[in-house]
């Protein structure tokens, strides 16, 4: 009747002896199912129902003897059934509220007479008989953890004595029926759990109604009032306006608690949260989310109103199901179903459900999630379990049933196993040791806590164990321990958190339970470089180190970075950064470099003067530390001031020195990254030149992993902006490897390579090498790359190539379909692609034959279509392209017909002088067509051009003047014709 249930009772009480089944909807539905199963058993399976149990099921009943009718000998206090087993024992015996039953048929009779007390009877029966299957079929079928061979044993038994023991066959059938029930129970429970997770209009409505019934002005009431902000309810049950419903929002509430201001709450399918409130005057709602997302209203209110939290406890049971641990309990309830694969399936399912839920929080992580999807692996068979398994099982037994002394001995002995070995780690989990270890954290015994944490710290290096620890609520306990006055305990708890918080959900749990604040608190210790530390101060420093380790793990989540900053972590980290000890510096710098992905941290690292320390530690003889420092600089050097600071503190030289660390690829990647970002400042490029960094960088162009190559090429691209460096790259033999990298597939690398090749191509001598290696064709082929950044970068690189190559026109023509390809890129919706392609077309159009080809491909109409843009960068290159395209056939007229002229005139009002120049040139070309002159005149071009004639830019002057002259000439000719 449910291996499931008996085990469930254990889960929900976590104690010894008889437990109680908690009254939750899920438990109730499981009980109902069992009732249905037992009631119908005797009618569906008459033969099986008469099978006599190996041991009677015994429990305390509330049934009066008088309820039993025929077939029973009824007296005042006792009942015995007429039916007996082989030995003459009655199949049912009730005396003084103690009842004993020996068959299913009797069980169903009981349920029949119990009528409205069915539920109570089944619950009592299950609570008293933790493993009913063992009693029904014998101890060998007891529910066991792990692989279960009971079915096989039964089969064997049936085979062996088919004639001797007819009962075995019945046993088999009963066993299978029970198994079937188990499966059914589990499936239904899962269904129910999966419904719990997302909110629906109906659940929100119920909750609001429930809350409303407990509202009032009196002090006992949990709230003053709850009301919807809108009275209108859509047919789907939502009250949110349709355009908000698409965000999953259901309705908005105005809740007045007793102790705080009015709360404005949004209920959405992902949960409930505070919104910006309603502006009564303007009747406008601020939909912006202002708080964390809670699972339901009760949870939100518990957090926001202490009055509510206090009074809610005294309310009826319907509320207690909303307890924090609710879903956890329910899930573990399901997790107890006997068989391994079922458990696996369940775990998987549950994690999917909760996965869906957490995704709603859009918690991003700067690092790829380790092992998020790793499947749970278990020992395939129990036959060849290692001896450690049994020894550990025994120790766990002593942990459970021992006093403090025995517990400490068992814990110490457990540490003698090789806890780094996966078999031992999983053995502890599989024999139920994790729960016990975690429960020990909740006791008052410091020694037990220390012993337990020492083990947890070791085994939490295993990702499955990490998940299990988090699943059992271990993180909450450890976070609480951080408040302990015992420093040793704090250290161990923080170190274990550091190990466990390697996956997203765990990091979130730490934050939700106030862990970040406490961990930041641990960082507060005396500066560790001061001499003559007392032993206590040394302990404080160790605590800080462990805190930094935990923060390092936690800092991989964006929200946690924010939480660390808000908890005042940055100045503390800055202070610890002055530590002379490497074991302190590594977690501190690790955290900083993790957080430096956020703008706020980059600014803070600069303002808290941390760059100096980071630079100083670059020169330490510890590669891990050097790596983290370099990555921190890599991320921070996005800021101009930071780049300057790195130079001022002489950080560029150690970075260049790190380039010789060719074996440590991570270090090399970080160092080259830092060099790349630093070289964005030209002053730094000069320094790098002085330190001969370019030679070294070129040396790293071959045989390096992509993450190094991206940075090396990026750095070379920046350095090549400087004329003299282009020659240096050539002399070091850098052009060839750069061009060959154009054939790669890594998008980030391609963007950097094209930029570097483009920069090098400005030098005509470099261009000959690029030409020889067919670099232009390689660049061109990148137009087929789907990534717009690559396309744009390739187009920019092509411009200098065409300009500096001797017979570029011919080469370009030789690319089959090449010109069509580039013209078609004008259909892109990426501004950068458009600007770069216009620039390239401007160069291509200088060759008359090519211009003819692109005209055939409809370049004029496409360019004209783009003229409405307001983006100055695009305007500049677009005007340039139009100007150059005018040189062919009737293109001037076509531009006029497609309406390109008027918008161009308006470009002259732009504030960008580069736009003015290109536009004037284009207008000058266009003004050679009479109709265009008229359009220009109509759009007030003359006045704008006249003012530009006064510019100091000669090209601009000349073009503007030329254009005005053309317009003037047309006017004169017109006058002449009219007045002749």
């Amino acid at each position, binding site marked *: 009747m449910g291996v499931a249930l008996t085990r469930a009772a254990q889960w929900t009480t976590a104690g010894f002896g008889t437990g109680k089944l908690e009254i939750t909807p899920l438990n109730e539905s499981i009980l109902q199912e069992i009732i249905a199963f037992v009631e119908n058993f005797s009618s569906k399976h008459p033969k099986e129902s008469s099978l006599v149990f190996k041991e009677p099921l015994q429990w305390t009943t509330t049934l009066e003897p008088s309820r039993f009718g025929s077939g029973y000998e009824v007296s005042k206090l006792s009942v015995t059934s007429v039916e007996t087993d082989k030995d003459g024992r009655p199949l049912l015996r009730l005396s003084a509220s103690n009842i004993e039953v020996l068959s299913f048929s009797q069980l169903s009779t009981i349920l029949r007479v119990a009528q409205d007390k069915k539920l109570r009877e089944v619950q009592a029966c299950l609570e008293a008989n933790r493993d009913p299957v063992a009693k029904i079929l014998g101890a060998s079928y007891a529910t066991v953890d792990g692989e279960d061979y009971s079915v096989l044993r039964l089969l064997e038994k049936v085979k062996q004595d088919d004639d001797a023991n007819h009962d075995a066959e019945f046993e088999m059938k009963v066993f299978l029926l029970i198994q079937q029930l188990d499966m059914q129970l589990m499936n239904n429970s899962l269904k129910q759990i999966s419904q719990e997770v997302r909110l629906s209009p109906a659940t929100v409505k119920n909750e609001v109604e429930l809350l409303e019934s407990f509202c009032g002005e009196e002090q006992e009431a949990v709230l003053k009032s709850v009301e919807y902000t809108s009275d209108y309810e859509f047919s789907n049950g939502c009250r949110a306006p349709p355009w908000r419903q698409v965000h999953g929002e259901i309705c908005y509430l105005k809740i007045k608690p007793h102790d705080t201001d009015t709360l404005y709450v949004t209920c959405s399918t992902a949960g409930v949260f505070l919104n910006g409130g309603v502006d009564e005057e303007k009747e406008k709602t601020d939909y912006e989310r202002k708080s964390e997302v809670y699972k339901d209203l009760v949870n939100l209110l518990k957090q926001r109103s202490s009055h509510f939290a206090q009074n809610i406890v005294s309310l009826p049971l319907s509320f207690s199901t909303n307890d924090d641990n609710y879903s956890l309990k329910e899930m573990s309830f399901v997790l107890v179903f006997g068989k391994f694969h079922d458990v696996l399936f369940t775990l998987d399912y549950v994690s999917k459900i909760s996965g869906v839920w957490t995704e709603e929080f859009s918690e991003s992580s700067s690092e790829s999630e380790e092992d998020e999807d790793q499947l749970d692996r278990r020992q395939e068979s129990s036959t060849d379990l290692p001896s450690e398994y049994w020894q550990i099982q025994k120790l766990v037994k002593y942990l459970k049933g021992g006093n403090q002394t025995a517990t400490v001995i068992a814990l110490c002995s457990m540490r003698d196993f090789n806890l780094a070995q996966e078999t031992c780690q999983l053995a502890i989990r599989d024999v139920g040791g994790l729960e016990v270890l975690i429960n020990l954290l909740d006791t008052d015994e410091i020694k037990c806590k220390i012993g337990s944490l020492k083990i947890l710290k070791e085994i939490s290096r295993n990702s499955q164990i990490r998940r299990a620890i988090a699943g059992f609520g271990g993180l909450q306990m450890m976070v609480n321990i951080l408040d302990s006055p*015992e420093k040793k305990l704090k250290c161990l708890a923080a170190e274990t958190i550091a190990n466990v918080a390697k996956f997203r959900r765990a990091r979130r749990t730490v934050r939700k339970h106030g862990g970040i604040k406490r961990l930041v608190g641990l960082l507060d210790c005396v500066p560790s470089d001061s001499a003559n530390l007392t032993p206590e101060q040394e302990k404080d420093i160790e605590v800080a180190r462990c805190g930094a380790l935990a923060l390092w793990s936690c800092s991989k989540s964006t929200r946690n970075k924010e939480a660390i900053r808000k908890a005042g972590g940055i100045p503390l980290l800055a202070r610890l950064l002055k530590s002379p000890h490497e074991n302190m510096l590594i977690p501190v710098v690790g955290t900083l470099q993790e957080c430096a992905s956020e703008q706020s941290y980059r600014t803070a690292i600069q303002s808290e003067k941390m760059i100096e320390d980071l630079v100083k530690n670059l020169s330490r003889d510890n590669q891990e530390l050097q790596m983290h420092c370099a990555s921190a600089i890599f991320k921070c050097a996005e800021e101009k001031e930071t780049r300057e600071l790195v130079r001022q503190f002489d950080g560029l030289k150690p970075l260049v020195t790190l380039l010789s660390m060719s074996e440590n690829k991570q270090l090399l990647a970080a160092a080259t990254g830092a060099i790349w970002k630093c070289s964005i400042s030209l002053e730094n490029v000069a320094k790098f030149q002085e330190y001969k960094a370019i030679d070294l960088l070129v040396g790293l162009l071959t045989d390096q992993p992509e993450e190094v190559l991206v940075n090396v090429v990026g750095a070379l691209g920046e350095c090549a902006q400087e004329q003299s460096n282009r020659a240096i790259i050539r002399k070091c033999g850098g052009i060839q490897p750069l061009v060959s990298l154009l054939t790669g597939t890594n998008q980030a690398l391609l963007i950097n390579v094209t930029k570097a090749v483009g920069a090098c191509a400005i030098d005509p001598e470099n261009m000959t090498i690029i030409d020889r290696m067919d670099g232009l064709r390689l660049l061109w082929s990148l137009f087929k790359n789907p990534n717009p950044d690559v396309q744009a970068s390739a187009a920019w690189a092509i411009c200098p190539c065409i300009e500096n190559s001797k017979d570029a026109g011919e080469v370009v023509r030789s690319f089959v379909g090449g010109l069509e390809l580039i013209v078609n890129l004008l259909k892109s919706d990426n501004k950068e692609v458009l600007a770069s392609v216009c620039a390239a077309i401007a160069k291509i159009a200088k060759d008359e034959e090519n211009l003819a080809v692109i005209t055939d491909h409809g370049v004029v109409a496409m360019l004209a279509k783009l003229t409405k843009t307001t983006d100055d960068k695009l305007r500049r290159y677009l005007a340039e392209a139009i100007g150059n395209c005018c040189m062919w056939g009737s293109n001037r007229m076509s531009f006029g017909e497609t309406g390109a002229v008027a918008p161009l005139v308006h470009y002259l009002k732009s504030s960008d002088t580069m736009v003015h120049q290109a536009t004037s040139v284009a207008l000058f070309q266009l003004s050679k067509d009479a109709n265009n002159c008229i359009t220009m005149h109509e759009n007030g071009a003359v006045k704008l051009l006249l003012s530009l004639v006064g510019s100091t830019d000669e090209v601009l002057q000349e073009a503007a003047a030329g254009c005005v002259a053309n317009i003037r000439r047309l006017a004169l000719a017109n006058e002449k014709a009219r007045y002749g």
Partner: protein
Amino acid sequence: MSLPDLQKLVKLGKNFSRKEVKCLMRLFHDLVGEQHERRAVSSLDRGKFMNILHNTFRMTDDMMMGRVFCAFDKDNDGYICLEEWIGGLSVFLRGSLDEKIEFCFNVYDWNGDGSISWGEMFQMLKSSLVKQPTEEDPDEGIKDLVDITLKKMDHDHDGMLSFADFEKSVREEHLLLEAFGSCLPDPKAIIAFEGQTFLNASEI
């Protein structure tokens, strides 16, 4: 009290300041005063001392309290004299690891033969496991526990724990200091006791 006597006591209670020794002396006399003077030399009897262990230091195990008494009672006369009181508390409250190792070993070594035997361990661990009704031999678990402990701590494999064995094990794993039962006060109790006793230390 004469000065040389005080000097001697201060030397015995080397983890205390002179003022603190005086406080402890005063406490001792207060405690002794409460009991009827049956002996010429004032000293604490077993019952009185065990009461202090129970009420002040929150120890609960009668057997262990008895053993702690024996460890305090250096001359084995069944009474704790002032010297034994000061010397014992010095270790009990503020002992260094070395001192505590010696103290605990003395507590666990019942017959004082310099080693903890299998039997002694069995006696001390006897009540450490909750009896499982399913088990045939309720002592099975205890025997096993003793074997586990021996395996962990008996470095010279002679079937018993010598002082050297014990010391080595505790140095490796501090948790094993009180391996056979709690015989030192917990930190909270120490803080409470010292707070109360040394409150007026500056006045003396």
